[in-house]
């Protein structure tokens, strides 16, 4: 059979490079091989990693890497300008320019359809989306590109938020601007976290650019453990549940019993958590193999005791971003109760909208905003009570989880009618008589669900113990464990590689 190397070197829209594709691990191996030549000198190291990151983004998102370069250049220059500006007005002006460019890119590529539909619906006029870039190219270069479609560049929501945080931090004088364009480009485009986060703050990452390479053997195996866990979460659990249960039930809930509807709602809670945290674990692991530390993005979110607690544990880099760059600048809780409530709702609404240009994400944000408001009201009234009893802890965890679960139903269902149909099936057509039959014939799904919830509820110290146990095993045994994990993941590989959910956001 002829081996077509070129096919693997150029971007293929049908097979973009994901962490779950074999081609990525081949790519990473080569990156590591040549990294050996550069890792001792930070300048060379950063330049090399910038280059491979751009190539990775090209492989993941095609020619949109040119836009990433544009965004990087703009924020690099504006960061320097903000710092150099003599007056507050000047600093503000450059900051506004940065916000305009970044939000403009995000708004154009992500929200054009949403706002066009909104305006069309509100005013009863027929407006069509036009891809102005394609239109310009067609006019100037004679190309024949589709001008009626705007494609969302992969990871744009993440790297624009990252660059926005950078220019705001420079404006606030929390960080100094990066002088070297290569260093800044590397900060923006570091490939493990480029397409789906975590959203890395300049203050946390830029100092690492100037530090010497430092990686112990323990850290290497820690990274390997994270990568293995991430792959298991994504392929073995999230994809399997999605293909064999969740997708089909959410598409046509009335075609399934109430039990299957209920099961798929719980399964989606597992899927979205394992999918996204799996990606993050792999990203953190890969970054660590290259000698860089990324912040954690999840901290046992389904063990949260309140919604406030949940948002401190779920997608931490986004929720802290929203807090620091939206909620607090709006006034936070410093301007009275009504304004605080408004700030919270606006933050959650926009946080919801960040997840996608669809009303269901806005509704999901509103739902969480309202719950957070109610929770504040409730907590202020029960402030003096003792909440430390074990049963109270578990009750609050279970209650919080189910509130989050209801939110996921809004988040995942394509329309309110689908969500309503799912709920009504649970109450009107539960299919109790067929539950045992379903469990018997779907033991893998049920088994995965049980194991997943066991892992979700497992205390962090036990997870640490398992990781510690793995790290100190002999080399041959660790390799054997890695091979066994690959074998198990291979057994569960499903019919089609599914992209990570958060790639779409």
């Amino acid at each position, binding site marked *: 059979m002829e081996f077509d190397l070129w096919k693997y070197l150029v971007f293929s829209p049908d097979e973009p490079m994901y962490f779950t594709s074999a081609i990525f691990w081949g790519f990473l191996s080569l990156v590591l091989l040549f990294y050996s030549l550069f890792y001792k000198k930070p300048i060379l190291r950063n330049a090399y990693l910038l280059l491979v990151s751009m190539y990775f983004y090209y492989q993941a998102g095609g020619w949109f890497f040119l836009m990433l370069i544009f965004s990087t250049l703009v924020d690099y220059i504006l960061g320097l300008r903000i710092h150099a500006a003599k007056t507050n007005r000047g600093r503000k002006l450059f900051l506004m320019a940065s916000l305009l460019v970044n939000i403009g890119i995000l708004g154009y590529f992500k929200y054009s359809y949403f706002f066009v539909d909104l305006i069309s619906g509100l005013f009863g006029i027929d407006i069509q989306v036009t891809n102005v870039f394609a239109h310009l190219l067609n006019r100037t270069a004679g190309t024949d590109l589709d001008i009626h479609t705007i494609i969302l560049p992969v990871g744009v929501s993440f790297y624009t938020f990252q660059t926005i945080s950078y220019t705001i931090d420079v404006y606030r004088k929390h960080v100094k601007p990066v002088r070297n364009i290569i260093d800044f480009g590397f900060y923006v485009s570091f490939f493990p976290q480029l397409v789906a986060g975590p959203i890395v703050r300049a203050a946390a990452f830029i100092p690492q650019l100037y530090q010497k390479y430092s990686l112990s053997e323990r850290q290497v195996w820690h990274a390997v453990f994270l990568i293995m866990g991430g792959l298991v979460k994504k392929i073995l659990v999230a994809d399997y549940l999605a293909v064999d249960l969740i*997708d089909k039930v959410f598409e046509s809930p009335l075609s399934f019993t109430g039990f299957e509807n209920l099961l798929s709602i719980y399964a989606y809670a597992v899927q979205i958590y394992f999918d996204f945290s799996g990606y993050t674990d792999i990203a953190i692991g890969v970054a660590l193999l290259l000698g860089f530390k990324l912040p954690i993005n999840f901290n046992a979110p389904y063990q949260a005791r309140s919604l406030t607690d949940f948002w401190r544990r779920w997608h931490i880099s986004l929720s802290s971003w929203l807090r620091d760059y939206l909620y607090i600048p709006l006034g936070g809780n410093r301007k009275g109760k009504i304004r605080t409530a408004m700030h919270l709702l606006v933050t959650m609404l926009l946080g919801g909208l960040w997840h996608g240009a669809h009303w269901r994400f806005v509704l999901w944000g509103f739902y969480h905003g309202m719950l957070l408001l109610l929770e504040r009201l409730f907590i202020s009234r029960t402030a003096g009570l003792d909440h430390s009893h074990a049963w109270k802890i578990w009750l609050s965890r279970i209650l919080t989880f189910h509130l989050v679960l209801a939110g996921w139903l809004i988040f995942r269902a394509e329309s309110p009618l689908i969500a309503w149909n799912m709920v009504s099936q649970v109450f009107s057509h539960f299919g109790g008589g067929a539950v045992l039959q379903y469990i018997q014939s779907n033991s893998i799904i049920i088994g995965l669900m049980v194991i997943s919830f066991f892992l979700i509820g497992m205390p962090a110290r036990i997870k640490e113990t398992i990781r510690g146990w793995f790290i100190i095993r002999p080399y041959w045994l660790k390799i054997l464990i890695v091979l066994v994990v690959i074998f198990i993941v291979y057994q569960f590989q499903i019919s089609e590689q599914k992209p990570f959910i958060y790639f779409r956001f």
Partner: protein
Amino acid sequence: MNNFPPYKIFLSFVLVFLCVALFLLLNPGDKYRIKVLVPETTKEGGGLIKGRSPRPPEISGVIVHPADEPVTRLEKITPADQSEYPDFISPRGIEYPNGDENILIPFIESIKGIEKEGSQTRILYFGDSQIEGDRITKFVRKRLQSEYGGSGPGMLPLMEPVYVSISLEFQQSSNWKKYDYLVNQQPSSTQGMGTMLSYSVYEGSEANLSISLKEEQDIAGRYFNCLRLILIPGSGEGVIRYSSSSTAIREWIVPSGSELVQFQFSFPSIQSELRLEFDNLAGAKMMGLSLESTTGVLVDNIAHRGSAGLEFSRDGTGSFREMANFLDPDLVVLQFGINVVPAKSNDFAYYGAYLAEEIRFLQEQIPGVPILIVGVSDMGQLVKGIPTGYLSVEKVNEVQRETARQTGSAFFDLLAFMGGAGSFKEWMDAEPILMRRDFTHFSHAGGAYVAEGIAQALIGAVERSNNPEDNGI
């Protein structure tokens, strides 16, 4: 601290890659893949030996892309005419063996009788999971009823534990159980299953059942004015009470007996819901319940997950014929094949031979009723990470066409309609998605196109009989 240089990590990666490569070298064709762990939707088939063999594994389940059209938009995506088909779809008419267009005459005459005599035309539409939940048949029914009249969903099992219909809402007491040849096998193979290839029973002295037609249905599909219940009563006299929102409770006294009996009632007005109460009929076998119109086209959705269409002749009791006598069908449609394609075989002649036996059995049971074989749909699987079509699809399709020729049945080439072998990829890539991510089952939108294609072919056959110069579609 001792630094761990990148090349050492690279060497460990190489070691792992070598082990994986060695494993793949020793594992051509996924030899070490544990089948039970693969989602049911992607399982490969095993053997297919009629009678005592294990049934061919079903490529069941319904895998969809999240972006697929929700149920509520189904009406909007049904193409109104063939000009609205995507480019890769190739609309076609019915194929007749040896050019004998008279095969469908009984069906066509029955259709003409609807207008002339106000009669019924009943289609028994048998299939595998491809038609499960009324997915394709709903649109065939809707199209034909809009063309020739008629309403109601047709014959239904009284209990369906495997899937839920997109057309109906069932509410029933929890003591019902359904038996069929495949999923919930009957306790005794000597008992017949009628035309539904299944029956339902209840335990205890009483049971109830409520049915309402879903509001998303088209207008015709949402109403019925005639009720039929076909059952074998068993020992002891029982009572069935039935009512709807606009009628008082009525009773049937069911005498004891071991023969198939039919209860039929025409409502004075159209209905969209029905409640049935069963008393002292614990031993009765409920063969089917039909909600229909007294005139027009009726399409019975008879879906059997995992079936290759080889179960008809298991009925040694004559129940199929007896029930068919009550129903008086005018056309039988057989849409099978997706459970045959994955079987590891280079020669599917054996399948053709078995299928021909089944068709001959049907022809004996319901003489004069034409049979239409809908060929297998295109499908694929993942081979080394690449969606790949089954080579056997074309072979199975040809075997089905040849079986149609041998048995004097009509044939609809669904594979060619889809765009030929390998077209499943285009169906998957279409917007909205037309084929599900299991590479096998149609999405609702895809099912609507398929149904439209089949319905148009039948309508074309009727029109062609009126005007022989017409090419049918």
